[in-house]
């Protein structure tokens, strides 16, 4: 699978939002013991800020939580299209190389529905995100990955999936109120 060629521009709102997020400082991976704990704390701080910002703006679009060690994350993302809300499960494991390596965010329910995805539902983040991440190691965290990776992907892919009928509202409507 190759990444899409279409350039993924980060809109102004996103930019402003990302600017409100705190930059992470600790450069440590899951195998780094105490340092990793610090790193996870910063991850949490960033996520909390991001969610607060979203709430205030009234455009919250995901929920996320992790295992105790902060290595595996699960949650939901949703996207509103033509007054209908589509919701998908979100899950991913942080790679050993993290934070040097960007996390591989996955939407397992959409596995096989689009070519912009790797096996197992990992979304295909284009070339634009990777260099951005690489330039900002260790300052970017999960919150950034969501804002700059998952968000734009959903905005591009979901409408096309709905348009070509691969995704139907009844299959992905909110499972809980």
């Amino acid at each position, binding site marked *: 699978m190759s990444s899409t060629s279409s350039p993924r521009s980060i809109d102004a709102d996103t930019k402003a939002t990302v600017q409100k997020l705190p930059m992470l400082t600790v450069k440590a991976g899951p195998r780094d013991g105490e340092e990793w704990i610090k790193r996870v*704390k910063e991850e*949490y701080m960033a996520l909390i800020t991001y*969610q607060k910002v979203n*709430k205030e703006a009234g455009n919250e679009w995901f929920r996320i939580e992790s295992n105790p060690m902060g290595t595996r994350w699960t949650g939901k993302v949703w996207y509103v299209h033509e007054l209908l809300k589509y919701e998908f499960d979100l899950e991913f494991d942080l790679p050993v190389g993290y934070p040097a390596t960007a996390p591989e965010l996955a939407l397992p329910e959409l596995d096989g529905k689009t070519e912009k995805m790797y096996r197992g539902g990992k979304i295909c983040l284009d070339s634009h995100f990777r260099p951005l991440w690489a330039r900002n190691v260790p300052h970017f965290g999960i919150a950034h990955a969501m804002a700059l990776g998952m968000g734009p992907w959903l905005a591009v892919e979901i409408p096309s999936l709905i348009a070509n009928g691969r995704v139907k509202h009844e299959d992905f409507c909110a499972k809980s109120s």
Partner: protein
Amino acid sequence: MEELLALQAELAKVQSAPSSFKLSEPNVVEVVQKLVELGLLDVLYTMNGKEYLTPRQLLREVEDELAARGGRVNVTELVAILHVDLPYIDAAVATLLREPPPAALGALQLFQGELIAEVYLDSLAEEIALQLHGAGRLSIGELAVQHTLTSEFLLRLVEPRLGSAIDATLSGGALYTAAYVARHTARVRGVLSGVTRPVSLPQLVREHGFNESLFADCVAELLACGRLRGALYGKSTFTPEVYTHAQQAAVLSFFTQNGVIEYAALSKMQVKDPRAHMLAQHADGIALSSCFIKRELLEAAEAQVEEACTSGGAIDLYGCFTFTLTDEDLERLVAASPSISSLLSTGRAVRLGDERSLLASSALIEACAKPLGELAAAIAKEKGTAHVQTAASKDDEAHGSSKKGGKAKAGKSKGKKGKGEDGDDDDEDEGGGKRGGKKGKDWRDAALGGDLDDDDDDEVGRGKKGGKKGKDKKKAGGVDMNAAPASSSEDDLLPRLEEKLLQAVPSLEETTDLAAAMAAHLLPKLLQMVATAVAELQASGVAERRKAVQAAQERLRSLSQNLQLFVKANQAADLPPADAEALDEALLKSTCLELFTAMLHSEAVHAGIHLPHLADPEADVTASERKEAMALLPPKPRGALQALEKAAVGKASTPTAFLEALWVAEEVLGEQCVRLDRKREKTALAEARAMLRSQLESTDQAEVALHLSTLLLEIDLNGLFFAAPGHLLHILISHLQPKLSPAAHAALSDCYAEVAASQKQQTDVAFDTEAVRHIGLNKGRAKGDE
């Protein structure tokens, strides 16, 4: 790690927190408006203006409110609670009622503006049951007030739940627990068991505070199951059986002891409808108007009556019974007794007296009837002499009917009229009198020979009736000439008869009032006998009277004939005026007056008035006697005769005028005098001549012979019949002169002179009577002429 967990938790918290508003209120309003406009949303606006509400939500809220309030809520209260306008709530309620009921509430209903769920009814029923359990009795009305519901609603609620949710009985608008009813029944049973005399149930209810609605059913039940013994009269009185027994025992013992019991006594003993009661108890008894008697008492009386009849005596039925009887009772007893009835019907006994209580045997009556004949004969004799006067009016009628039919008819019709209008006194007098005569043809009429051939019995009965009527009339002020004496004499008869009976049969005195009653019983028979006797007596009297009438009429006829002849003679003879006047005057004084007297007598005879001195043609009747006789006559003939009298004795009267007056009077009184025609005149003259001749032949008095001879000569020679008194004979003698031989005339003149002289000197006439008679008998020829 601690911090990590805290952060983790914070993230979760932040994520779960709601997002803050981003739309302004006006925007939202607009959005909602838009939604409503588009028909995407249907909302109701609350009254505080801060909330929207969908109709579905309203339904839910109403339901919730209903549940919260235990299943009953006032629709108008919902307005305040839900802040929704009443029409919406009404609509919501209507929808709820239409839709299948929510399981939690059960069926819904709208009652008097309140929404009521089945749940509420159930809970209310439970509450009532609980309350009832405590109180024993609950009135539906009170419950209705307590729960602000109507009685009907509560009844609808309670009735289906009786015996299940509510264990009670419903009676008269109240609920009673079984225990309460049982307690009440026990009290009623106790009270009614203790009662020994009839009691008023309403009074018992008042005194013992019984429940009125339960009481009647309770008593009926107790009576039906036999726990109580007694009888209910209507719904107001209870008579215990023990009382009835005691009462019947008391009545029975009294009745068996005395044989008679008064209804009043029974009423006092609280027996209702005593008569029917006794009849039911003693079918063989006899129910009288005021008491009830045993048949044995009647049988005892029958025995007494039988004995009295066989022994030829009499008995007072009242005396046969120890208790007082009314007349009606007596009739009933007689009807109830076959033996007395048969005695009466076979004529072996007769009931007497005003109350018809006396029973006399036929033997006794026969004994009493024996002396009647004797008494009747005596009475008839008295009647015969006394009745000439009293029968006047009756006789007048009889006379009138024979003489002048028109008058009688008028009298009859007048009588009828008088009967019709009793108020008019004048009419009454005359009409009543006539009626008395007609209707009350009593035995005295028969005695006078009026209607001898009529049935005597009938006569008697009617006579009595008439007599009684007459009596009434008399009291009322009318004068009933005919009937009044009848009744008075009847009254007289009774005591006489009674006296006679007592003399004849002294045993009558033994029984009170028997003599009087017997007299009353026999009176009709006596009257009948008297009537027969009187009739027999009068039969001869009638013949006499008829003779008298004939004589009077004969006299009248001859007198009138003569008068006509005399008048004619006076007119026909060509006499000097002075002589003619003298003759007329003499005629008035003699024949006219005599005729008037005869007429008066004739009327008196017709009127039944006995005037013997008028009957004698020779008698000298004075003016006062005439007046007296006139006064006795009935008014009509009296009037006619008065006019005639005036013509006879009036100063300027003449025989001709008198004759005219006579014809006028005749019209009123009926034709009795005959007008002379030629033929009759001849006969009359012949009669007069024959009479004069016979008298002349038989006389030996000179003056009489002269008189008769002169008159006879006038008839024979001139065909004129004169009436001239002795002192006027010279007029006739000179009138005869042309027709007589001188010798005869001289003889008559001499004789006249001799007679006049002898009368003057009061000496006997000394003249040859024979010579005068010869002249008279031989049409004026003297003895010497032949």
